[in-house]
């Protein structure tokens, strides 16, 4: 059995013009593991999942999925390989129904046999299956992003601030769902500002500050790390 982790970032860098947004970011994620990605606004969290998911191309370093470099592959190939994501501002196909949104993802990723009814039930969208995606609430659209990603047969999901705007009960439901997905072997990188929510689903967090990795470890230890404290509250 290979000791290679599911996902490895090896000194990944990204620049936008003269601005370095990611600088030598390196970490690994194992199958079924949930990793929290935290940091102040502008620290590079979303850019990290953008380069992993192929929305942006890394300027430096390597991204390996099961030991295979994938950093130059376009987003559609990464999706077919099992890397998928949700968005902070959800991006459904608004004129399509909820079911059509999920069917498109399943079909083009070669998973026509996927149980769409089960995905609809799991993401609490069964009652809205025939409704146009554009008519859903923002929170429902976030769940649709997740449902669409699940239909592609993901090995790793990149979850971008799914908890923003949810009430405590809804957060609890999402936390249970993410843990259930992890138990099935799906790895997750969860970008989140809600630390209580993260605390509920994972013990391992990575803290970014100005594009650099400041800390990797438990959330409790992170709160006592001077670099992390300085990044969040200045110093």
């Amino acid at each position, binding site marked *: 059995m290979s000791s290679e982790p599911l996902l490895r970032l090896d000194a990944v860098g990204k620049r936008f013009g003269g601005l370095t947004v990611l600088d030598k970011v390196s970490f690994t994620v194992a199958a079924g593991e949930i990793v929290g990605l935290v940091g102040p606004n502008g620290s590079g969290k979303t850019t990290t999942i953008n380069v992993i998911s192929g929305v942006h191309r890394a300027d430096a370093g390597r991204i390996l999925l099961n030991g295979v470099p994938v950093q130059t592959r376009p987003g559609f190939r990464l*999706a077919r390989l099992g890397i998928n994501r949700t968005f902070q501002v959800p991006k459904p196909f608004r004129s399509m129904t909820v079911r059509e949104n999920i069917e498109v993802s399943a079909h083009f990723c070669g998973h026509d046999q996927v149980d769409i009814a089960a995905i609809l039930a799991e993401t609490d969208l069964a009652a809205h299956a025939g409704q146009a995606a554009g008519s859903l609430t923002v929170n429902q659209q976030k769940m649709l992003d997740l449902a669409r990603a699940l239909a592609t047969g993901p090995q790793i999901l990149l979850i971008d601030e799914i908890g923003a705007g949810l009430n405590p009960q809804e957060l609890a439901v999402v936390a249970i769902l993410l843990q259930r997905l992890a138990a099935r072997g799906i790895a997750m990188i969860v970008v989140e500002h809600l630390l209580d929510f993260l605390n509920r689903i994972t013990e391992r967090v990575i803290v970014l500050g100005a594009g650099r990795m400041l800390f990797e470890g438990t959330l409790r230890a992170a709160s006592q790390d001077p670099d992390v404290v300085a990044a969040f509250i200045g110093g």
Partner: protein
Amino acid sequence: MAVVGALALIAPHLYGNTSLLFTIMTFVVLAEGLNLMYGFTGYLPFGYVGFFGTGAYGTALLVLHTHLPVLLCVAGGGVASAVIALILGPLLRLSGAYFSIANLAASQIIYFVVSNPDLSSITGGPYGLKLQQIYDPPASYAAMAAILLLAIAIAGYFRMSRFGTGLRAMTEDPVSAALAGIDVVRQRLIVWLASALIAGLAGGTYVWNLSVFYPESVFNLQISVFAIVFALFGGVGTVIGPLIGAVILYSFYAVIGVSAPQYFELLYGLLIVLLVLFLPNGLISLLERKRIRVF
């Protein structure tokens, strides 16, 4: 398709002006061909006429310099347009107005190259080309009808197939479409080539019917404008919308534009303003508002 094919065959027996019928059909083909690109990817090819002209010249040069059957020459004209579309493929990296303007510029480059007097020995330069030896209005009419059916079949495929669902997804959100596993660049290129092929075939058949033509006859920007307005008037992203739009508006043009050209521009402009204000999705949206499913 059967209805359109039957109408195309019957029309010359019901109405004597076959030249007008041929021209209307040419614009129906162009509106449908432009609809393939604009209606199904959201990319508006303002220089669409460039493919029409390329098809015309590609066909004419094959007729003049080879002994191939005319139909093969027309097919060659269509392929020439598709090759130009392939060369212009990088334009698809642009979007919105940038793409439209770049495509317009590309069509003008082709026009100026073809009409260059220094190339008179090849393209005829500004003096055009003569193809009297293949003049055959009934055959060219039948060929244009066949191209119309081909364009309708392709639009139907885009409308009904999984490939078309992918196009719809790409048009709504290309980033999400890629994450759904859709090869956005490849699908968009396929549509671009299909759209150019239709214009090229139409251009080749058009000059087969004319027999004598000049660069202005096949690279006139008004051809692009007509195709765009006709498609929008009927309703893009559908199969029958551009067809209805082209038949109605070209008939209107043939009546008013010829008998009272001084009012034509005014009435046409007014029509476009009214269209944008009240029917931005074209005539076909009137049916959709009544929950009538359109093809």
